[in-house]
């Protein structure tokens, strides 16, 4: 069965100190339901990575279903680190495609800012390899630094070659009212930013934020009868790679990005050239560069070239719009919600409802959510159904 998105909602990524984890989820869930003019769905799939570690809360399905006015509904958490939102969308897609449920809410939520500093970093480390990475003092940022340093070494690059990815993200995020950091990056600011895990600096990595985003998924036939211009989920794929970098034959090759992109495009019967916009997992600029290589947009060692000239080619008016609402870098990385922010943003692009972030002629958009450094990769292609 073909599957469509018929409603979407998101709240700003912020430090939401006055709202609980459940309140954030309910707010986004209600926005999506209202957008689809629905009061109920058959099932709720929650993308959340760190509920246990950040909020001491599991069983979010039960917690949220009742507060959304759907007691008794099928509802549970889908977890794959920072790809949790992407795999929750995958679960909703599979459930509807199989015919097991008629409609589903894919809802990502994270409350990251209740704990701060080194405690948050330690909590976030649950998504690394406990025995071989975390025990040795690793963080996700440090692991990204390892990839970035090696990449710079192999291809003779320095930090300045990655600046355009962050500049582009902030240029777009500045126009997005849901973005956490709406400041454009002034010339030189990226290069002067303090180091977190040298070579990764503060303006290279995406900031953690609290947030929630949701889409409503339904069968395309029913959707065509009931909703105007629904957006098709034309491809959906999840692939995995070794959890730890040390177990990969070639750490600079994100094989799960390659696999899930290929599977997703094959299902969608599309090629890269058909895609109007990309929402990639730009948690670190090195991940964006390596993703563009693994997807086939660049040869090995040349993914960074997309960041040239302040990211002119990846701007919303460029040849390959990337992070059209600011990406994780400027909109903020709300952990398990990030994959669903991508879905809401792509949905709005395809519906022509992206406001100041609207790109022209959006027909197919690819969204990609990554857990760890390419350990779990969820990729979806969303398509406009009518001209």
């Amino acid at each position, binding site marked *: 069965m073909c599957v469509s998105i018929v409603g979407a909602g998101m709240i700003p990524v912020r430090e939401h100190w006055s709202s609980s984890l459940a309140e954030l989820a309910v707010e986004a869930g209600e926005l999506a339901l209202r957008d689809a003019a629905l009061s109920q769905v058959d099932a709720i799939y929650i993308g959340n990575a760190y509920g246990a570690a950040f909020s001491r809360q599991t069983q979010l399905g039960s917690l949220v279903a009742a507060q959304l006015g759907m007691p008794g509904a099928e509802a549970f958490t889908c977890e794959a680190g920072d790809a949790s939102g992407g795999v929750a969308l995958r679960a909703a897609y599979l459930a509807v495609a199989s015919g097991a449920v008629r409609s589903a809410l894919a809802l990502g939520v994270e409350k990251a800012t209740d704990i701060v500093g*080194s*405690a948050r*970093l*330690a909590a*976030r*480390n649950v998504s690394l*390899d406990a025995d*071989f*990475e*975390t*025990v*040795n*003092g*690793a*963080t996700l*940022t*440090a*692991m990204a*630094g*390892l*990839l*970035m*340093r*090696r990449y710079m*070494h192999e291809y003779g690059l320095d930090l300045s070659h990655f600046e355009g990815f962050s500049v582009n993200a902030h240029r777009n995020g500045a126009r997005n009212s849901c973005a956490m950091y709406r400041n454009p990056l002034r010339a030189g600011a990226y290069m002067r930013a*303090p*180091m*977190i*895990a*040298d*070579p*990764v600096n503060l303006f290279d990595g995406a900031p953690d934020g609290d947030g929630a985003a949701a889409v409503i998924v339904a069968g395309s036939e029913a959707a065509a009868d009931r909703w105007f211009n629904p957006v098709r989920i034309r491809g959906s794929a999840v692939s995995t790679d070794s959890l*730890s*970098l*040390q*177990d*990969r034959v070639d*750490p600079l090759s994100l094989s799960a990005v390659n696999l899930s992109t290929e599977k997703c495009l094959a299902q969608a019967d599309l090629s890269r050239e058909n895609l109007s916009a990309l929402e990639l997992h730009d948690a670190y600029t090195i991940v964006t560069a390596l993703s563009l290589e693994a997807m086939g947009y660049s040869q090995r060692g040349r993914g960074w070239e997309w960041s040239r000239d302040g990211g002119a080619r990846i701007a919303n008016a460029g040849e390959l719009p990337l992070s059209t609402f600011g990406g994780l870098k400027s909109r903020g990385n709300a952990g398990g919600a990030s994959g669903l922010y991508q879905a809401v943003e792509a949905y709005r692009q395809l519906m022509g409802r992206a406001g100041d972030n609207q790109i022209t002629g959006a027909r197919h958009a690819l969204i990609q959510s990554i857990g760890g450094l390419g350990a779990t990769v969820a990729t979806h292609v969303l398509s406009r159904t009518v001209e």
Partner: protein
Amino acid sequence: MNDSRIASPAATKDASQQRAFLRGSVYSYARVLDPPAGFEESAPYYLALIRLDDGQLVTAQLTDVERTVAIGDSVEMVTRKLTTDGQRGVIVYGYKFRPVIK
């Protein structure tokens, strides 16, 4: 268990290898200035991926670094304190790598 994973030098059955330091070279490194809880005392520290002489990659901190680190530097495995499980908790020992003294 995945054979490609390294446990510790002591896990090898070859007695002759037990006495030798495990050696390799720095594949990559990052200088951690923003450490997770439990590692504040050591910061800033170098986290590295070491390519062992048998080809396996290992994630570990570098220790006894006197000047700078560079990709390709020769290093050897040593036992060091990693962290302490709270003020009165157990001390967690593990492996780090130090530059090979020529």
